[in-house]
């Protein structure tokens, strides 16, 4: 009997707790809506045109996916170099530490601090879309880098993705004589850019009847994990002819594993990005090639567009889709790696 009374009391307490919670949530949600709606209504009409080349103070925020990666550092330097010539333009960089949630928080802060433009690499295009929209509505142009947002905004500057996979596939097929077993080292599944890269590679390889993709494993973009994955590839597929890694860091790991297995230079190992270390490994014959994009140039292109947008009367609402700028990809092999000068190696 005692137990039953206790049970009833507990249930009642839980129910009250639930209603309490639900009530609380509704109010906060309403508050949040009200908060979001106000700046939007106030600002669509007054996107302030500022001339960045006329000495007026301008500040640009760069919100990176993870500042610890060479790519992100390359873009950061490109943006900074572009703006360094003008003393009135200030660039602040923020690292999203590979988390879309962190990026959303940073975006809120950046919008509140009234930056003149935001350069953003969306860790998750869907999760960041509301933040991007909020920024654009507040009159802050958003330029995305490589990773798009699922909403119309000022511009997207990107390296080729699908085509990079296609080019790597064509080159690898040529290198291995259009026959043999190959494998793919994947990144983290679900990122649009890298999924496209892999798709491009797979679609192109499908045209060669002699080539078979015998394995595909994730190494989470990490060099050390790629060593382990490559080791197991070499064990289970002794006749492996080639490996395509979705990024250069993993291709470098694969090359290290091949070297340790006594197969240095015997496999066709391709990456994508074109970072400094990968180019050095192509020079030394450890790696076959990569699809190079000049990250510094990409960053400075994004900065140029940001300055253009800051100084123009246009805002995102005249657009029906996000305009794109696509960076020129260069297929780098041992034959032409020397043509990429030191000052273009990021």
């Amino acid at each position, binding site marked *: 009997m005692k137990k039953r009374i206790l049970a009833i009391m507990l249930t009642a307490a839980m129910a009250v707790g639930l209603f309490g919670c639900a009530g609380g949530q509704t109010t906060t949600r309403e508050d949040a809506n009200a908060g979001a709606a106000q700046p939007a209504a106030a600002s669509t009409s007054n996107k302030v045109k500022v001339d960045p080349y006329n000495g007026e103070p301008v500040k640009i925020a760069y919100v990176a996916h993870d500042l610890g990666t*060479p790519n992100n550092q390359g873009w950061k330097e490109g943006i900074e170099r572009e703006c360094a010539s003008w003393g009135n333009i200030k660039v602040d960089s923020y690292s999203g530490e590979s988390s879309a949630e962190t990026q959303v928080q940073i975006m809120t802060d950046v919008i509140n601090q009234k930056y003149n433009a935001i350069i953003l690499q969306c860790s998750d295009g869907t999760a960041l879309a509301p933040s991007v929209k909020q920024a654009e509505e507040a009159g802050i142009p958003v330029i995305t880098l490589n990773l798009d947002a699922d909403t119309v905004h000022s511009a997207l500057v990107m390296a080729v993705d699908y085509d990079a996979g296609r080019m790597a596939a064509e080159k690898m097929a040529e290198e291995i004589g259009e026959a043999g077993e190959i494998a793919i080292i994947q990144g983290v599944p679900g990122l649009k850019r890298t999924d496209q890269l892999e798709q491009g590679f797979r679609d192109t390889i499908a045209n060669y009847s002699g080539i078979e993709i015998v394995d595909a494993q994730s190494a989470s973009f990490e060099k050390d994990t790629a060593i382990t994955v490559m080791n197991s590839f070499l064990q289970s597929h002794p006749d492996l002819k080639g490996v395509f890694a979705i990024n250069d860091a993993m291709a470098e790991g694969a090359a290290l594993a091949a070297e340790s*297995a006594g197969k240095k230079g015997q496999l066709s190992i391709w990456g994508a990005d074109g970072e400094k270390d990968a180019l050095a490994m192509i020079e030394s014959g450890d790696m076959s090639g990569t699809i190079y994009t000049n990250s510094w140039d990409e960053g400075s292109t994004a900065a140029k567009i940001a300055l253009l947008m800051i100084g123009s009367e246009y805002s995102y609402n005249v657009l029906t889709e996000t305009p794109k700028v696509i960076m020129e990809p260069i297929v780098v092999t041992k034959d032409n790696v020397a043509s990429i000068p030191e000052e273009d190696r990021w």
Partner: protein
Amino acid sequence: MKGFNISKYSKPFILVAFVLILTALRPTTFPTVGNIANVLWSVSVIGIMVCGTIFVFLVGGIDLSIATLCGFSAVVVVEVIHFFGDTTLGVLAGVIAAICVGAMAGCVHGFIITTFNIPAFLVTFASQSVFLGLSMVITNNKIVSCTAPAAFTAIGAMKVFGFPLPIYFMLVIAIASWYVLRKTEFGRYIYAVGGNATASEISGINVKKSTILCYVFSGITTAIGGIVLASMTQQAAAATGSGYTNDVITAGVIGGVSLLGGVGTVPGAIFGAVLMGLLNNGLNLMSVPSTHAGLVKGLVIIIAVGFDAMQHRDQSRKRAGFRLFKKKAA
């Protein structure tokens, strides 16, 4: 005296079972010297680190700074080598510097935790940020590559009798750590402190000194792990070793180390690391796509650890005459 007791050997039993299953599934690729070397190579960094961190677990502490301290020591070794112009002397100096950094970090952890009586969780949680910050400042948040002196790249990759060097490091450190814990007075103190710190204090053990030493050991092995990792990947960055905190703690816990202190052995912890390595290797060899790998991994760990725990529960039940389930059935 007593008959064969499976519970005492349940961990080796699970490993053997694993090896047999994988051999049956992949008879040509799994049971080769090369593949076993790969498995051990891939767990060597975690294995090295868990041999020191187990001391911290045994006194009831925790070290959340493993990943970033590992990264920091990787940065230190690489930067010192560059400072010495990529020479063999530089490698020696770099290794010593990194180990000193690890030992000092552990010393500071232990000192703060014991002197101010702050939970280890908080101290190491804060310090992980400090180490990450230091690495970022030193490297300017860039990857520093280091491919030059052969003495450095050999640390992580040179093969001796078909097995890469880090495996030997892991073995030596594991034996040393096992010896200290099992065969020395200090080792018994650690188990005592982890079991009941107050009672140990009263019975004359210098709890403060023992605890600080435990953190120093953890720092040293973490630094060695960082050196090996830097050499294996021929680079260092602030992000080097990210994720290793989880891996090391998981290896320890799978191996039967209690996070509450006082319970756990070095062979157990190594078992945990090797089990995880075998699991990853098996998934790779069987080409399990990454979308399914997490699911399979989790289930297998639960089954293996559950089996292990069941053996030990049976044992303790017999000893204590605990009959809860039988009673209910009747």
